[in-house]
C-alpha cells in the first residue's frame, strides 16, 4: 500500500478531525477493514470549531508535509454551528496563507460524515499521493529551524 519512490520520501501528514463525524467515519473505515495509507496521524477534537489555526502552522513547523482538516457536513454539526464557524475561519485563514506564499495545496479540507468510511480512506489516500508528489515541505521547515543547529533530515 505504501509506494516506494526514488527518494524513499514518505510524507508525514497530520489530520485534525472532529469526534462526532470524521473520527467516527475513520472508525467505520476501520471496522470495514478498508485499507489506506499509514502516513496520516489523526488528532481528535470535539468539533472542528475547536481546531485552532495555530495548530496547523505548528504542525507544518514541526515537520508535517501535509495536513487534513475534516469535520461534519454543514447543518450536521453535533454542536449545531461549530463547523460553520470553522468554515469561516478557514476561508479567512486560507486566503491569508495563500497571500503570504504558504502552500495551501498541502492542506486538504473536507467534510466526512460518520457514515463515510470509504470517503475518509479516499481523502487520506489522495492527500498522501498528492503530498508525495509535491515532496517534503522543506522551505517551511527551513524557516522554522532557522535558529536550530541541526540540518533537516528525513527518513
Amino acid at each position: 500500500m505504501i509506494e516506494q519512490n526514488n527518494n524513499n520520501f514518505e510524507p508525514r501528514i497530520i489530520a485534525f478531525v472532529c469526534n462526532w463525524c470524521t473520527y467516527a467515519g475513520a472508525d467505520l473505515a476501520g471496522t470495514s477493514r478498508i485499507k489506506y495509507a499509514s502516513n496520516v496521524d489523526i488528532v481528535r477534537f470535539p468539533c472542528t470549531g475547536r481546531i485552532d489555526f495555530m495548530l496547523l502552522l505548528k504542525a507544518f513547523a514541526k515537520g508535517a508535509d501535509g495536513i487534513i482538516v475534516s469535520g461534519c457536513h454543514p447543518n450536521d454539526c453535533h454542536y449545531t454551528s461549530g463547523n460553520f464557524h470553522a468554515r469561516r475561519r478557514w476561508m479567512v485563514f486560507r486566503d491569508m496563507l495563500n497571500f503570504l506564499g504558504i502552500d495551501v495545496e498541502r492542506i486538504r479540507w473536507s467534510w466526512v460524515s460518520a457514515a463515510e468510511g470509504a470517503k475518509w480512506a479516499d481523502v487520506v489516500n489522495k492527500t498522501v499521493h498528492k503530498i508525495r508528489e509535491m515532496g517534503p515541505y522543506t522551505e517551511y521547515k527551513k524557516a522554522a529551524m532557522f535558529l536550530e543547529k541541526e540540518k533537516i533530515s528525513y527518513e
Partner: protein
Amino acid sequence: MAGVEFATDYKYMCSDPGQNLIKQAIKEHHLDGVVVGSCSPRMHEMTFRKVCSEAGMNPYLCEIANLREQCSWVHEKCDATTNKAIEIVRGLVEKVKRNKPLQAIEVPISKKALVIGGGIAGIQASLDIANCGHQVILVEQSPSIGGHMSQLSETFPTLDCSQCILTPRMVEVAQHPNITLYTYAELEKLEGFIGNFKATIRLKDKSVDFSKCTGCGLCMTKCPQKKIPSEFNEGLGTRTAIYTPSPQAVPNKPVIDRENCNYYKKGVCKICQKFCPTGAIEYDKADKFITEEIGAVVVTTGFNVLKTDFFSEYGYGKYKDVITGLQFERLASASGPTLGEIRRPSDGQIPKKIVFIACCGSRDPAKGLAYCSKICCMYTAKHAMLYQHKVPDGESTVFYMDIRAGGKNYEEFVRRAIEEEQVNYVRGRVARVYEKNGKLIVKGADTLLNAKPVEIEADMVVLATASIANNGAEDLAQKMHISYDPYHFFAEAHPKLRPVETNTAGIFLAGACQAPKDIPETVAAASGAAVKVVSLLSKPTLVREPLIAVVNRCAPPQYSTCVGCFMCQTICPYQAIEREDITDRRTGQVIKTIAKINPGLCQGCGTCVSFCRSKSIDIQGYSNEEMYAEVSALLNK
C-alpha cells in the same frame, strides 16, 4: 518515553482480567495518567475511565489511543504501521501529561415541568409526567385545552369519535393533583438553563373570575354579540363575545373576547354581568404575570392548517363551498355548526357531488412547501367515507398524487374507502375550480388514463390543505432559544436518534410542532418526551461530563486575561456564555465585566476556545496545552 513509568500489553484489555491489570498498575506504581492503546475511544473510553476511577485515579487522566480502527485494521502489517502505532501512543502520552483531574459537574434541578400547548401531545405529556409524581404546569393559549383533536369528528383508522377518546383525558388533566392548568395564557419569557429555568407566564385577563363562575352558561345565552365567527368551528359557525370554544371545553367556564365585546368596544352593554348569578364577571382587569421555577420544558404547540385563500386557482377564498379538511371535520361533527350533516356553507343544501383535492400546498416546492403533510391521504379517505355514510346517494371523488397510508391498519382503511364505500379515486391534479350556475366546476386530469381530462360539476370541494407551523412559532422558538427549520417547525436534536429533544438542553418537543404527525405518533412522541423529562427530574442533581470551557481567573488587578469583548457570547451555539461583573467587595463598584461559562449549559464544542484572541477561555479535556503537546509529540522523532 519520558514520563512513562510502566508499560504492558494484554490481549483483551477491556475484559475483567485486563481491567484488573490496569487497576493493579495504578495502585502499585502510583500512576497519575494512563494511556490505553486499544480499540476506538468511541467504544471503550468510558469503560477504561471507570476502571481508573475504581482504582482511585481521576478518570479524566485516562486517554485511549486508537490502535485498532485507525491503525491495525486499516494498514498493512509492516514496520511503518508499527511506527505509527508508537507515534499515536506517544502523542497521547504527551497529551495525558497535561490532562487535569476533573470532577463531574452537579447542577441542582427544580422538580417541575412546564408543558406549553394543551393539545393531545401536551395532555399526554402532562399526564405521563404527573403520573410519575412530578409537578406539571400546562399552559394553553386558547380558553380550552384539546387542540385540533377536539375539532375532529372521527379519527382514522378506527373511526372512533374524537371527542369521546379525548375528553376523558382533558378532564383527567383538569383534575390531576400534580397538574396546574393555565388556559388563556402564554409563555412570556423563559430564562435560565436546564434544571433551573425561570418561566414568566402571562395569564390573559378573562374578565371572568373562575373561582366564582359555576359554568352555568347563562351569560352566553344573553350576550347580544352572537354573530362572531367561531374559531372552534373554523369560521363555519358563530359564537358570542363571552364564550367557551365548545360545549366540551375544559375548563368549561367562559372568557370574554375583548375585541368583539360591546362593553370593551363601545362601553355599553354589561348584560352578562347583570345576569350572572354568582357575580363572577369583572371588567377591565389587567393581565397577570406569574413566574415559576421549572426544571424542564416540553413544547407541544401543535400545528395549523393552510387556509384556502392560499389557492387562487381553487377559489381564492371566494367560493364559500371550497373548504379545508378541518372545516369538513366541523361539518361532519355531531356537535358542529350543522349538527353532523354535511351541508354547503353557501346555502345549507346537502351536496350530492363532492370533490376532495389532496396535496393542497404540500409537496409543492414551487409554492414553497416542499414537504408532505403526512395526514391528508388518511383524513381525505376518512372524509370521503364519512360523506358516503351520511349521504348514501352522494358521489365523492378524490383527486390524489399518491396515497400515503403507512401506519397500522391505514392501508386497509383506504382500501375500504375505495372498494366498499365506492369513493372514486382519480390519480391526477386539479388545475382549476370555478363557479358556474351555482355549481363548482372542477377541472382535473386522470393520469392513469393517459392524462384524460376530468371535469366534475361539484356541489362542494374540500381541499386537504397543508399542515403548517402554528402562528407565533418563530417568536416562541426565539423566546426559548430553540432552533427551527425554514418552515418554522421546531428542530429536533437528531432526526433519528433524538426526535423528542432539542439542541437546547432541558427543552423537549412532541407532536406536530416538530413536523406533521398523526395522533398515534403524537401520543408516542409525547410519552417519549415525558420520559426524558422524568429521567431529568428524577435525579437529585444533574450530573454532567466536565469537558466544558472555562474562562481563566487570576489575581487582582487583572482578575482574568479576558477583556470582556463578549464576541464569544455571539459564537456560542448554546448561549452558555454570560457576563460576570467583578466588583469591589466593599464599595460594590464594578471593576470589570468578564465572560463566564455556565457549566450547566456548555456542551464542550470548544469553538469559543479557538476563537478567543487572548486565549482566556480553555476547554477541559481538549485544552490548548494538551492539543499542542499531542501534535508536537506526533511529529517528534
